[in-house]
């Protein structure tokens, strides 16, 4: 047998490929010593989990997936970075525990959840993933393996949470699980008729529900611009409420769809049907945990839907003081420039966490999927200008097109973050394609 010869390529979830290769060992201890970057399940949309061009091999963690311990008394779970949230859910929901925070897909690793300090539908009450992390074992750039906590080497701890893999390789994560009464959600769905109304509705729902999020139809203009559906819910406390088993198999897209498949007309038709499917006012239903938290996971590899050019997601957060105007301007830029976003999600965030580069801050977050085409760079530039003008910022885990100068303007915390990186990795051995693009690291 011979060594691999075909040119290997790698991409983020948005499928913009570039030459790169994965190393997928069962233990991270030795290979992390001279790896340039860690990668989890590759669910970051852009180039966060891609290595710089000159060192094109990433350390993929998904096979380093041992659990270390679970203490039912403190609810502390410790596990290697490659354990996926899906595995945790499958094992722990039947025992009455759920992730304290989960993103909209469960196919992410613990390492990826820490590095992006992921947020979920409960950010307004529970903060980000990092708020529930108790300890991290990190291989830093100078070669040492450091166990850091809120008390010990706290600078490394808080820079690693939300630090997009740039402070070191997370080998092991400790986090506190949440006890839940069942595996079904009592959900309330409310049709909302405009962006302003949406923000009011989210604010009201936030006071009554642990989990809230909104879906917006971004193609309608005029009176119904910003119409959509608000979803809110909590784990059911009904006696005898079951814990539905995790799906063993899901549908799978096997081929790229042609690029027109998600064009404006399709998205408009989909949105129309989706919106009309909900009756006016509020509907209540009981829904399984997977359908509530992870509707997109019903189809594996759905990113093939966007065809060979791939896509990006634009996600920004606007601070409370300028959220109303800012959100309207962002949506306006999108519709004016004809961006057809298949998915548009709106969510109110709670207070900014302590992760030095964490995304959320108190205000409104908007996320849009954008198929890549010739105008996408200009669209992202225009969106970024609005976001900067309103004091907001973007989510690095989704980004592939933001310019370095825009990033600097929205990220006053960057200098402090870079200071921590310098301390633990003086030779700057750990970097990503994204840090090359946004932070000026060596390509």
């Amino acid at each position, binding site marked *: *047998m*011979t*060594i*691999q*010869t075909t040119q290997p390529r790698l991409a983020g979830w948005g499928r913009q490929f570039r030459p790169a290769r994965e190393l*997928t*060992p*069962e233990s991270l201890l030795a290979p992390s010593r001279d790896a340039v970057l860690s990668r989890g399940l590759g669910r970051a949309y852009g180039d966060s989990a891609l290595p710089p061009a000159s060192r094109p091999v990433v350390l993929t963690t998904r096979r380093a997936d*041992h*659990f*270390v*311990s*679970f203490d039912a008394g403190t609810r502390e*779970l410790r*596990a290697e970075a490659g354990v996926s949230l899906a595995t945790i859910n499958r*094992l722990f929901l039947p*025992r009455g525990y759920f992730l304290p925070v989960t993103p909209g897909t469960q196919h992410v690793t613990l390492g990826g959840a820490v590095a992006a300090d992921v947020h979920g539908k409960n950010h307004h009450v529970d903060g980000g993933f990092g708020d529930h992390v108790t300890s991290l074992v990190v291989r830093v750039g100078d070669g040492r393996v450091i166990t850091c906590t809120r008390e010990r080497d706290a600078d490394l701890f808080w820079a690693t949470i939300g630090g997009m893999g740039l402070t070191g390789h997370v080998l092991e994560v400790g986090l506190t699980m949440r006890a839940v009464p069942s595996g079904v959600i009592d959900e309330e769905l409310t049709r909302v008729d405009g962006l302003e109304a949406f923000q009011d509705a989210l604010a009201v729902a936030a006071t009554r529900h642990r989990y809230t999020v909104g879906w917006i139809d971004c193609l309608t203009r005029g009176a119904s611009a910003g119409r959509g559906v608000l979803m809110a819910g909590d784990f059911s406390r009904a006696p005898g409420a079951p814990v539905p088993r995790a799906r063993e198999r899901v549908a799978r897209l096997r081929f790229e769809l042609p690029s027109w498949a998600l064009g404006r007309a399709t998205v408009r038709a989909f949105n129309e049907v989706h919106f009309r499917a909900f009756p006016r006012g509020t509907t209540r239903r009981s829904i399984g945990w997977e359908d509530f938290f992870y509707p997109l996971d019903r189809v594996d590899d759905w990113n093939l839907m966007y065809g060979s050019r791939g896509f990006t997601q634009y996600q920004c957060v606007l601070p409370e003081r300028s959220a109303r105007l800012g959100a309207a301007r962002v949506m306006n830029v999108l519709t004016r420039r004809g961006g057809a976003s298949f998915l548009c999600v709106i969510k109110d965030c709670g207070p900014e966490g302590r992760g030095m580069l964490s995304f959320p801050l108190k205000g409104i977050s908007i996320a849009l999927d954008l198929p890549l085409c010739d105008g996408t760079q200009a669209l992202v530039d225009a969106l970024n200008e609005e976001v900067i003008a309103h004091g907001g910022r973007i989510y690095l885990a989704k980004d592939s097109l933001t310019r370095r100068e825009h990033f600097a303007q929205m990220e006053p915390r960057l200098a402090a973050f870079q200071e921590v990186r310098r301390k633990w990795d003086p030779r700057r051995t750990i970097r990503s394609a994204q840090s090359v693009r946004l932070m000026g690291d060596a390509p």
Partner: protein
Amino acid sequence: MSHATGRRVVFVGATRGMGRALSRRLVERGDRLCLLGRDAGELARAAADLGVRGASAPPTTVACDLSDPDTIEPALDAALADLGRLDVVVVTAGEFATQEALEAEPSRVSRLFDVNVRGVVLLCEGAKRRMLAMGGGALVVFTSVAGERGRASNVLYGATKAALSAYLEGLDHRHFRDGLRVLDVKPGFVRTSMTAGLREPPFAGEPEQVARDVERAMDRQRSVVFTPRAWGPVMSVVRGLPRAVMRRARF
């Protein structure tokens, strides 16, 4: 088909690869394991992992190096003492080396046969004796599609697996009526540390897929299973190829 749970299982090879994936499936369905292996640190990590996954006490670990025959009987005694009875013995442990590496270093040839044939066979003999004494049980042993035909690309490794398959088939014929169930697992190419860096053929599989197939084959009391399943039809073609073709084939 039976969906036995709570079985007492001796497992050799749970620290890595397909054994790691299969041992996890077994504890998740409620089987109780005892782990045999040669690296105490790796065994302890595997045991802790299985303890969390199975929501139970971590399995006991016992030192056993298949390259050292003296470790085998004491390990089986210790495992039996721990488990109280023996329902299933799984052996995924094995070594691999390329034909080129083995030709360059003949001492590795005897090591390969020592582990893959002598070690595994002695372990099976000991396990069989103990299980038959208790009325039967199941042996699940990983060989390889490489043992199906003598192949130019892996003469020696293939020979170890062919020997093991012949042994397992014989055991089945000899002891089926005594209650011994023998499952010969024949993986095709699977992405594990054993195959890291090798060029992938078509139908390369993941360890989790193999674990699912093997669990099902155990439940159905099959005697041979090809996994990932595409390798079944592939190997029936390969079995039928004339020698003249095999001589020219590079695989």
